[in-house]
Structure formats: structure tokens, C-alpha cells
């Protein structure tokens, strides 16, 4: 089976390591990802909060591309893209009126049926936990992970249908399979203010601080994320947070695919562990993982 891969804009830039680790892990697991040719930006939050039609048409055009290129499943690692793809699909399927408009705007048919999966869903539902457990060679024993789901991955739950919107477990289950220990904490699903990062940086610094604090209080060594926007706010802004609040902030933030990659024994530099602003190596070394 091959999957239509929708990396999204971030994975080709700031979230390069998410892209690399996703591909390496899938490779190792024989999950064949083929990038959708000529994919376009899903429009993220700015599109649907500015013009509803645009907010649906942009992601939907990608589903049309996938369908035209013969894919029956699209996989997106970016939670924001996943959210927009799912929402667009949902809106088009549930309203003939929207379907008609989107058909007109994209100039292509709307009666398509493509499954949309987030990358972690691919591991849970397609590959399966039992097989996953067997292939892990380097268990991450002793590492305490706070899994951060954020908002876009889960909500609206009726549309995302990925996991419980308040007490999700999928990332925790995956981390636990690697031998690491997922810690219970309160801010799993709080929003980091993703879309406000550039225009309202101050808000995002506050929100991110609370999230990191909560993870630290829960005893986490690292935070795991499944979204480039979460990563951008939590990893890249820790220095700014430290400055703003006058404290030292250095909790590594890893993509869940990087954790899985480590468990599969993939070279950490290939997984992009070097490109984080908060250096994860010291913690990983201290835990005897590297």
C-alpha cells in the first residue's frame, strides 16, 4: 500500500526534522510515502478565518490532487494541515451547498473519497502497536515524556475523530511502546496559541511557558509533539520565555517521530536532533539513550 504524503509548508522549512524523521521511520517500517505532486498550502488558520470558501478550497484542492494521482489515503504529519484537510473534507461531505461552491472554485469534482490520516494514526491503525513493539531495537527506557497534543490534532473531535479531545492517549501509547514513560499532566490539550506566534508573540510566550512549566512539574525530561506549530512555539521560543520570565528554560522538545526513530535505532543526527534550539543531547545522554 502506498500513501499520498502531504508534508505541508512547515515541513519543508522550519520543521525539516519532522519531515526527515517521518520519512526515515516510515522507510524503516516499510510504509511507503509518496509526496503528492504539486501540492499547495492548506491555508492554515489565516485562510479559514479570513474567507471561508478559501479555507475549504485550498485543502480540498490537495485532496483532489491526491485522488487524481490515484491515492486513496493521504497522510499528513502536520497537525494543522491534518486539521484543515479533515475539516475541508467534512464540510464538503456534509453540505451539498459547500460542495457545489468548492467544485466551482477548484474547477474539479468534489465527489472524491480519500482517507485522511495523521502520521501517528498511521502507526496506530495501519501498522499496529503489536508489530511496532516488535521492531523497536533501542528502547528508550528511563526517559520521561510529556506528550503534548495541542489543539489542532484533536479538535473538533467530531471532525478529527482521532482520539478523546480531553484525555487523548494515542501519543502516550506510542511513547510507552518505545520503553519511555509518558507522564500524566494537565496541559496535554491546552492550546499554545499557534496561529498567533508571529503577530501576538507575547501571548504565545505566556501560553508556552505554562505548558512547559506543567510538563516540568510533572517530571518530564522531554516534551513530545506532533505538530510543527507546537514545536515552533515550545522549542524555538524557550530562550525568549526565559528572558521574559527571568528563569532558565531548557526542556527539549522532540517530534514523536524522532522518538520512534530513536527507538528504531536510527542515527540521531539524521533524525534532525541537531536542529533543535534546545539541545536534546544532554538529557538523552544522561538517560543512557545515546
Amino acid at each position, binding site marked *: 500500500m502506498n500513501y499520498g504524503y502531504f508534508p505541508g509548508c512547515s515541513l519543508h522549512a522550519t520543521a525539516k526534522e519532522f519531515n526527515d524523521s517521518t520519512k526515515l521511520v516510515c522507510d524503516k517500517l516499510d510504509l511507503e510515502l509518496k509526496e503528492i505532486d504539486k501540492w499547495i498550502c492548506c491555508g492554515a488558520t489565516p485562510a479559514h478565518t479570513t474567507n471561508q470558501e478559501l479555507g475549504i478550497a485550498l485543502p480540498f484542492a490537495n485532496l483532489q490532487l491526491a485522488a487524481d494521482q490515484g491515492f486513496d489515503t493521504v497522510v499528513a504529519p502536520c497537525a494543522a494541515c491534518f486539521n484543515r484537510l479533515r475539516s475541508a473534507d467534512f464540510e464538503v461531505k456534509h453540505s451539498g451547498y459547500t460542495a457545489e461552491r468548492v467544485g466551482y472554485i477548484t474547477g474539479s469534482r468534489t465527489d472524491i473519497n480519500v482517507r485522511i490520516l495523521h502520521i501517528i494514526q498511521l502507526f496506530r491503525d495501519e501498522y499496529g502497536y503489536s508489530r511496532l513493539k516488535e521492531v523497536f531495537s533501542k528502547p528508550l527506557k528511563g526517559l520521561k515524556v510529556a506528550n503534548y497534543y495541542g489543539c489542532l490534532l484533536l479538535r473538533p473531535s467530531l471532525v478529527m475523530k482521532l482520539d*478523546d*479531545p*480531553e*484525555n487523548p492517549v494515542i501519543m502516550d501509547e506510542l511513547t510507552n511502546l518505545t520503553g519511555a514513560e509518558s507522564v500524566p499532566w*494537565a*496541559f496535554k490539550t491546552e492550546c499554545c496559541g499557534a496561529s498567533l506566534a508571529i503577530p501576538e508573540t507575547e501571548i504565545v510566550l505566556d501560553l508556552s511557558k505554562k505548558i512547559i512549566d*506543567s510538563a516540568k*512539574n510533572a517530571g518530564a525530561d522531554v516534551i513530545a509533539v506532533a505538530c510543527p506549530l507546537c514545536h515552533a512555539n515550545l522549542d524555538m521560543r524557550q530562550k525568549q520565555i526565559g528572558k521574559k520570565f527571568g528563569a532558565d528554560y531548557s526542556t527539549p522538545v522532540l517530534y514523536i517521530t524522532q522518538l520512534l526513530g530513536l527507538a528504531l535505532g536510527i542515527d540521531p543526527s539524521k533524525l534532525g536532533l541537531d536542529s533543535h534550539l534546545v539541545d536534546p543531547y544532554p538529557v538523552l545522554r544522561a538517560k543512557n539513550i545515546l
Partner: protein
Amino acid sequence: MARIGVFVCHCGENIGRTVDCSVVAKESAKLRDVVYSVDYKYMCSDPGQIMVKDAIKKHNLTGVVIASCSPLMHEKTFRRAVQETELSPFLCEMANIREQCSWVHEDKVLATKKAVDLVRLMVEKVKRNTPLEPIRIPVTKRALVIGGGIAGIQAALDIADGNQEVVMVEKSPSIGGHMAQLSETFPTLDCSQCILTPKMVSANSHKNIKLYTYTEVESVTGYIGNFDVTLRKKARYVDDSICSGCGICQEKCPQKKISSEFNTGLGKRPAIYIPFPQAVPNIPVIDKERCTYFKNGKCKACEKFCDRNAIKFDQTDEFINIKVGAIVVATGYEMYNIGKNNKNGIKGYGEYGCGEDPDIIDSLQFERLLSASGPTFGEVKRPSDGKVPETVVFLQCVGSRDKAKGMEYCSKICCMYTAKHTMLYKHKVHHGQAFVFYLDIRAGGKNYDEFVRRAIEEDGAIYLRGRVSKIYREGDKLIVKGADTLSGSQVEIAADLVVLATAITAQPDIVPLAQKLGVGYDKYHFLSEAHPKLKPVETNSAGIFLAGACQAPKDIPESVAQASAAAAKVLGLCSATELEREPYVAKVYESTCAGCGFCIEACPYKAIDNKAIVNRQGKLIKNVAYINQGLCQGCGTCLSVCRSKSIDLAGFTDEQIFSEINSLFV
């Protein structure tokens, strides 16, 4: 020749606004065999009824059609009026031009036309009505009360004091219901057990009451005045005729760590247990699932130490057949559990941690913490570490008034008991602070609003108008993120204990019981009364009444009032030796009956039997069906299975219905 009178009611404005009643009267006058028609403002009023009676006499009417409200509302009224003349009450029919016409349509022309149609239908039917004789049935002067909470106890005592026998059935090991678990009660703050326990004791000792605890209703057949009920007395493994209630067995039982139902999981009990010290009867029961002996064949400590040899490991469920004339259902309620996404679309509260944090408790648990007989002997200590909580946050409307969770109704009592909780808490923890998140305060009872005001003004509870979005733990504290819509702000409170006023829900196992009884229930599974205003304790099944919170969320005063009302209804029923029943029963035409027996199979009441027809020499000519009129309930199922059309149903004969259909569209 039929002579029919038609009486069209305006029902004030209710019908008159949408249906032109004078036109209906005029059009009715044109119908064949209608000799008199009139419209009037209130047909059911005294002058209205007199009009009907006068017209019957003056115009020699042989049938009457009242075009007004639903027959379910006033058929009895008008038939009684008709009966006061020479005419048989069964020659009166109603055309429902209110519920099924004026109230549901808007176009005056169409509604008037429909009203005329409905009158015509009934004129055609009533012409074919016959003066039936009501059926008399004997009444068994004994009542069954199902459920031994305050409602059931009150109903049983009132009936028993009225000198009728009562059988009371309680599914748990003791009577008392939820009231036994409460600390002090609003609006007077008197101690719940102090006012309840004497009633429990007299229910057990009353000469007219036979009490079965740990017993459930297995099956119910029959009808008003004559119900046959089978009870299943579950095995207690203790012989209640020998046991003295000494309690030694409880002390000796090695299984001590079972979570106590009575203490809402906040206390422990052994495998053989008396649910609480004041239990009635004061006899233990063995929890078979948890008992070491039942699990692996060893122990029997209780048996060894019981000096009366009351333990009986080989006891089995016992079935008891009783005959009763009336039934009172008083099965009460359960609290909504925030933990599970359970059946009927009722969702849990992920945002409040699904009840997994020990310091997020429900109100009933808080009652146990407040109660002198509770697990903390009345000291307010939080479950996680036994610390006295200094900041307590109460949340109202948890699950209630919440479409998303699947319960849109108001649970009615939580506003009041939350106010009570803040007061009792303050009385016990003087330096403590209570916060209450509420949506509205519903305190519409005698002295109720004053009570809530007292909580705020004298006992210093801070009321915040808004819901809470999330509760999470941060170290020692629970962070409550709520809103205060009055100031338009987010509010965050670091609390030691959070108490959720969770919704009052129907008993989870009520539906099968309702089905056995033939009693209706609403979409939340609360049992349905026959009429929300005029028959609040009756059900649609004659002879079966409701009391207490099984019908809707109710506090104690209301439960007691309804219980006494139900008792009055039962006593009224039992005051007659015979009942009159509407004679809508089926009848077999023996000449055409082929004796195929299909109807016998189909009848849900087993009212049909085979009857041999013999000639004078005693030789069998044929078998036919025979209907026992005492058992027949008039459902008509037999008619439609009979291929030779050999059965008819009085009141709904083929002829009547066909003539209705024939006159539908002219």
C-alpha cells in the same frame, strides 16, 4: 333513526382562535342524522354540560358528539354528564378539534375544514355505538409498593394507616433510599436520619405492611384491581427468621476492604455486611462476588462465629407470588456519573478528569463527609490525604441542562442542596471558603430562596455565575478554571476539594420494570404520569401510581407529598369492592368461527380459550374460541388475526371504524 347532537366548544380562545366554531356547528347541522348543533365558549363548564343534558332531553338525541379537546382530557366528564340523562354514556363521542386541530394548525380555513371532517367522522361512529354495560371487576384490597426510599415508605405507611394491606419491595438490603445517606436537609437543616429512621422502623413493624428487602419484581400480569405479581427474593445467605442482627459476623469477616455503597465508596465494608447501622431490617447479607468462601471454597468465618446458626450458604433465590389490586412505583433516582461515557448518549466529563481525581467528588459523597454517621464521622476531610479542605469549590448543573452531555433537564434539587452544603461546610470549617459556580439559582419553594440568601449573606459563600471549563491538578491543589459572566472574566481558583452537583438521573434498570408494568417513560427514562397537571400521580396503566423521584427529580417534601397523594389514590381504589371498567372487550361470533386458534395464540392476556360446542346429545359439533371478558383488555389483536372475521371489539367494531373511514373524504 339516529338523532345526533353536535356541541362545538371554543375552549375560550384555544379553539376559537384558529377554528371558526360557528361554521363547524353550522356545517355539522347539515350532516345526515344530525338534528341539533350548537357552539359555546366552554363546553366542559357547568352551563356547557347543562346545555348538553337539556338538548338530549329536548331533542330526543340518540347520540352526542362533543367537538372540543382530547378525549383523554374530558371524555369522562362528558360521558358522566350524558349518563345523568337517560342516555347511555357510551353514546357520547368526542371530536378532538383542539390538540389535533386548533393547536397544531395555523390556517383558519384549513383548520375549520379539518374540524368539520373530524366531527363528521365521530357522527358516523356514534351512530353505530351501542349502549354498553360497564364491566364490574372485583378488587384485591392489597397494594404493592416498589422501592423503599422516603417516597415508598411514606406511601406504604399512609396506605397501611388507612387499614389496607401493603407489600413493600426493596431491591437493596435495607429500606431508606437516598435519604438515609443525607446529612441534614434543606430548608430546615434537620437531621435526615432523625426524621427518617422512625419511619423506617414503623414501616417494618406495621401490622399491615409486609416488607421484602433484597427483593425485586420478577413479573407482573393482570390489570387494575387484580394484578398477579411474582417477586424474586434474592438469596441473602442469611436466614432472616433466625438472625438477631448482632453483627458478630461482620466483625469476623476477613474481607474488610470492599468499597461501601452506602458510603459512596468513601468507606469500606466486609463481604457480609449490614449496609449501615440503622438499616431496616437489621440483617446482614453476603456479597457473593466478594466472599472468600464463594470465591475459593474457604473461610466460613461468619458461619463459625454466628451463635444462632443463621448463615445459610446454600440459600437460593425464592419466588413469591402475590395478588394485589394497586401498585405504587417509588424507585427513586441515581446520580449521574461523570466518569463514563455510558449508554443513552450520556457522556462523561473529560474536562473534569472523568472523576479520577480523589478530591473531585459528587454531592452525595459530600453528604457522607458531612454526615455524623459517615466515614469521617462528620468531619470534612478530603479523600486524598484526609486534610481539612480550606477552599472548596462547588459546581452546579454538572450534567444537567447540558445538551452535549445528553441531559437537557434541570435536576431541580441541586441548587438547594449546594446552598446547604456551603452552609454546613462553613459551620464545620469556620475559616474555610466556599465558592459556587451556578447558572441560575432555582429556589422556588417555601422558605427556599431565603435559605439560599442565608448561605450567601450569613455563611459567606461566594457565588459565581458561570460554568467551569476545566479542572486539573497542580500539586496539592486542584485548579478550577471557570467564568464569572457577571463581571465578564475568567476565574481561576486553587481548591482543596471540588464538589460536583451531578445530575439526578433515572434508575439505570428502570426500563425493564416499566415494561413489565406497562408504564410509559420519557426520553431520559423518568416514568410518565398520566397528565402533567391533572393526573400527576397516575400512570397510563390503570391501578399503577407513581411517587417520588422515579417520575422526575424531586426533593423530600415533594416526594412525600406525591407519596401521600398516591396512597390516597390507592385507598380510594380499595374503598370499593368492585370496579367499573370500560366494556371495550372482544366477542366471538361462534357461527363463523372456524376454531383455528390463531386468536388464542395472539391474545397477550391469555383471555381466549377453546370452547367445545356440543349438540343436545352431547356430541361435539365444533370447537370455537371463547373470550373471558374479565381478562380481555380490548386491544383488538385477535380481530386482526382472525381470518374469518369472527371477532369484533365493542367500542371499536369493524362497522364503526369502517364508517369512520368511509366518511373521511367527501
